[in-house]
C-alpha cells in the first residue's frame, strides 16, 4: 500500500471536469442478470459440448444408429442371403492392396483360390454361408440396439415408477418395496433371464422381456434414493404447502429433476443390455438364427478366431465403439448435469 499515494496522484491528474456529477445509474442495472437466458437443459448441453469425448461419442452413436437403422431400408445385401460359393471370403476393398483388406487370409488369396469373379468383393468379408458380413453387421447392430432400447424402455418405465412410489410414499410402503427389491436383487439377474428364456419361447421378444424384467432394479434404486433427497427439497415442500397433489408433484417436480439421473442410468443400461445379449448368444440362448445380433456375430467369430480372424475384428470394433460411446456419453452427461462440475 506504500505506493497507493502515487497511484492516486497519477489518477487524479486526468480527471474530467464533470467527474463528480451524480451518475445516472440505470435502475434495471441494479437487478441486472449478466448471464444469457438459458434453460437448465441448455446449460447442461452447453457444458456437454465442452466435453469433446462425449460429443464425439454422441456422433459415433448417431452414425452407427443411422447406418444400422438405415440398413432396414438399404443394405449392401440381404443379410440372410446365402451364396455358398462366396463362403468365408475375407474383406476386400476393390483392388486396394492394403493388408487385411485385400482378400488374403492366412497367406492365401482366398478370392483367387475360390475362383471368385473379378469385381466381386466384400468390404468386411463373408461368413460360412457366403452371407455379406457388412449387411449382417448392420442388421446385427440394429437388432442389438433394438434389444437395448426396448429393454431400456421397460426398465425405465418399471424402474422409475417403482422408485418414485417407493421413495415418495416412504414409511411402510417403502420398507416393503425395498424388501422386494432386495430379494429380487439377491437373485442374480442372469439367473432370472435364463429362467425366463427357458419358460418362454426363445427369441427377440423373450430376450427383451427377460432383460427388462431383471434390469429395472438398479434404476428403481437410484430413482428411489434421488426421490428421497428430492422430497425433502424445499421446493417440493413448497408445492405441498400450496396444496399440490402427490401425482402432480411427481410429474412437475420429481420427474424433471430425476431426468438427469434417468438419462445417465439409461446410458449405462443400454450397453449392459447389448452386452448381455452377446453373453446369451455365447451360451447358446440368444437371438435365434439366422437373425444376426452383435452377440451372435461375435460368438460365431470367436469359434473361428484362429482361422477367420476378420470375422471377429469388425463386430468387435462396433461393439467396442458402442460401449465406449455410450459410456463416455454417459460420463459426459453425468458431468454436464452436475452443476458442481464447472468444466
Amino acid at each position, binding site marked *: *500500500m506504500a505506493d*497507493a499515494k502515487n*497511484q*492516486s496522484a497519477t*489518477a487524479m491528474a486526468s480527471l*474530467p471536469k464533470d*467527474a*463528480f456529477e*451524480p*451518475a445516472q445509474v440505470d435502475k434495471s442495472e441494479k437487478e441486472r442478470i449478466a448471464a444469457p437466458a438459458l434453460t437448465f437443459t441448455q446449460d447442461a448441453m452447453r457444458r456437454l459440448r465442452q466435453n469433446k469425448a462425449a460429443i464425439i461419442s454422441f456422433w459415433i452413436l448417431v452414425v452407427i444408429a443411422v447406418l444400422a437403422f438405415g440398413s432396414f431400408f438399404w443394405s449392401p445385401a440381404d443379410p440372410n442371403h446365402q451364396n455358398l460359393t462366396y463362403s468365408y471370403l475375407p474383406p476386400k476393398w476393390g483392388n486396394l492392396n492394403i493388408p487385411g483388406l485385400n482378400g488374403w487370409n492366412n497367406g492365401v488369396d482366398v478370392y483367387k483360390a475360390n475362383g471368385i469373379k473379378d469385381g466381386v468383393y466384400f468390404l468386411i468379408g463373408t461368413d460360412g454361408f457366403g452371407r455379406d458380413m457388412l449387411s449382417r453387421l448392420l442388421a446385427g447392430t440394429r437388432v442389438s440396439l433394438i434389444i437395448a432400447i426396448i429393454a431400456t424402455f421397460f426398465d425405465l418405465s418399471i424402474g422409475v415408477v417403482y422408485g418414485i412410489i417407493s421413495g415418495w410414499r416412504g414409511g411402510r410402503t417403502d420398507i416393503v418395496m425395498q424388501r422386494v427389491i432386495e430379494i429380487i436383487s439377491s437373485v442374480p439377474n442372469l439367473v432370472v433371464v435364463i429362467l425366463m428364456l427357458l419358460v418362454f419361447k426363445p427369441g427377440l421378444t423373450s430376450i427383451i422381456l427377460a432383460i427388462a424384467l431383471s434390469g429395472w432394479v438398479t434404476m428403481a434404486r437410484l430413482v428411489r434414493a434421488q426421490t428421497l433427497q428430492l422430497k425433502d427439497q424445499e421446493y417440493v415442500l413448497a408445492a405441498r404447502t400450496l396444496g399440490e397433489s402427490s401425482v402432480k408433484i411427481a410429474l412437475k417436480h420429481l420427474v424433471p429433476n430425476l431426468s438427469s439421473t434417468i438419462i445417465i442410468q439409461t446410458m449405462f443400461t443400454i450397453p449392459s443390455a447389448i452386452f448381455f445379449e452377446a453373453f446369451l448368444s455365447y451360451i447358446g440362448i440368444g437371438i435365434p438364427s439366422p437373425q444376426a445380433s452383435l452377440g451372435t456375430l461375435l460368438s460365431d467369430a470367436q469359434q473361428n478366431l484362429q482361422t477367420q480372424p476378420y470375422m471377429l475384428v469388425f463386430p468387435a470394433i462396433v461393439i467396442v465403439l458402442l460401449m465406449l460411446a455410450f459410456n463416455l456419453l454417459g460420463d459426459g452427461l453425468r458431468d454436464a448435469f452436475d452443476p458442481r462440475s464447472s468444466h
Partner: protein
Amino acid sequence: MEKILEVNHLTIDFNTFASPVHAIRDVSFHLNKGETLAIVGESGSGKSVTMRTVMGLLATNAKIEAGEVKLEGKDILKKSEKELNAMRGNDVAMIFQDPMTSLDPTMTIGKQVAEPLRLHTKISQKAALKEAVRVLELVGIHDAARRLKDYPHQFSGGQRQRIVIAIAIINHPKVLIADEPTTALDVTIQAQIIHLLQEIQHKIDTAIIFITHDLGVVAGIADRVAVMYAGKIIESGDVDEVFYNPQHPYTWGLLEAMPTLETKRDRLYAIPGTPPDLLDPPKGDAFAPRNRYAMKIDTEQEPPFFQVSKTHFAATWLLAPGAPTVELPPEIVRRRKIWAQKHPSQEAAK
C-alpha cells in the same frame, strides 16, 4: 511493527469454460506480527481465493496474472512444491469454514491432530499424540486423551471446529488463516470459538487473518480490517477507523444494513441490487451500480486508494480532492460522532 506477510498487487484469473473470471483484481495488504487482520466481504468477493494463494493451494485452473506474496520477505509464489509443503501447516496454517466437512471422517482425531507434527518434525507417533492431547485440551476438548481414538462424527460441531483449530495451531504457525471459521456455527458457539482464538493468539503469539462476512464478528476480533468487494480491497484500516470513521459507501451500507440491538427504525437501509458478476465486471467502480452516491466518474474509472490516515485507506472517488461532500446516512453520522469523541484532536475526515 514487523510485517510478517505482505501481499502486493495480486491479480488472479480463473479459466472457466465461458471466459476468465477475474477473481482477484490488484489486491495488496500486509499482516503484522501478532496482530489480527479481518477481511470482510460478501460471498464471491475473493476472500478465499486470496487466502488460498497465501497457502499456495490455488485450484489448477487459477492463473496468477501479477503480484507477489511475501512471507517473512520471501515470495511464496516462487517457492517449489516441496518448499510449500514445508511451509504449510508449519509457518502458515488454515482453519476452514465448515467443521462438519473439514475433518477426514475415516481417521481418528488423534491422528489428524498429530499429523502436522509428524509431517514437520521428527517426532515419534507417541510423542506426537501426547502433544495432540495437550493442544486438544488447550482448545477445550475435555478428556482429550480418552477421545483420541474417536472419529469426527462423534463430536459436535463446536467441538469439531475446536479440533480443526487444534490442527492449525499444533505447530505454532506464524500466520494463522481462519476462513470463515464460525459461519456454520451457532452464535453461542461462535462467540466461544472467537474467544478461544483470541486466547490462543495471546498464548502462541501468532498473526491471524480472520475472514468473515459478519461485521459484528470483525468488531470483536480484529486489530485491522480490510473490506473486499468484487475482487478488490476497497477500504482498510484499524478496526476503530473502519467502524467509527468509515469512508467507502459500501462499508457504510454494510454498517447501516445491520440492525443493532439498540436501533429500531421503520426500515433498514438496504444496499440495492446484487454484487457484480466477476465474469463481466462493470466498467469503472464495481460498486457504482449499487452506490447511492455514485458519480459520473465512478462509472468510468476505477477509483485509486486514497489515504485517510497512516493506516486507513479507501478506494472511493468521494475522497478525491474536489469531490462533493455528501450527506452521510444517520448511522454513519452516529459512528463518526463516536470517532470524534475518541479523537478530539483530529477532525473526522470531511
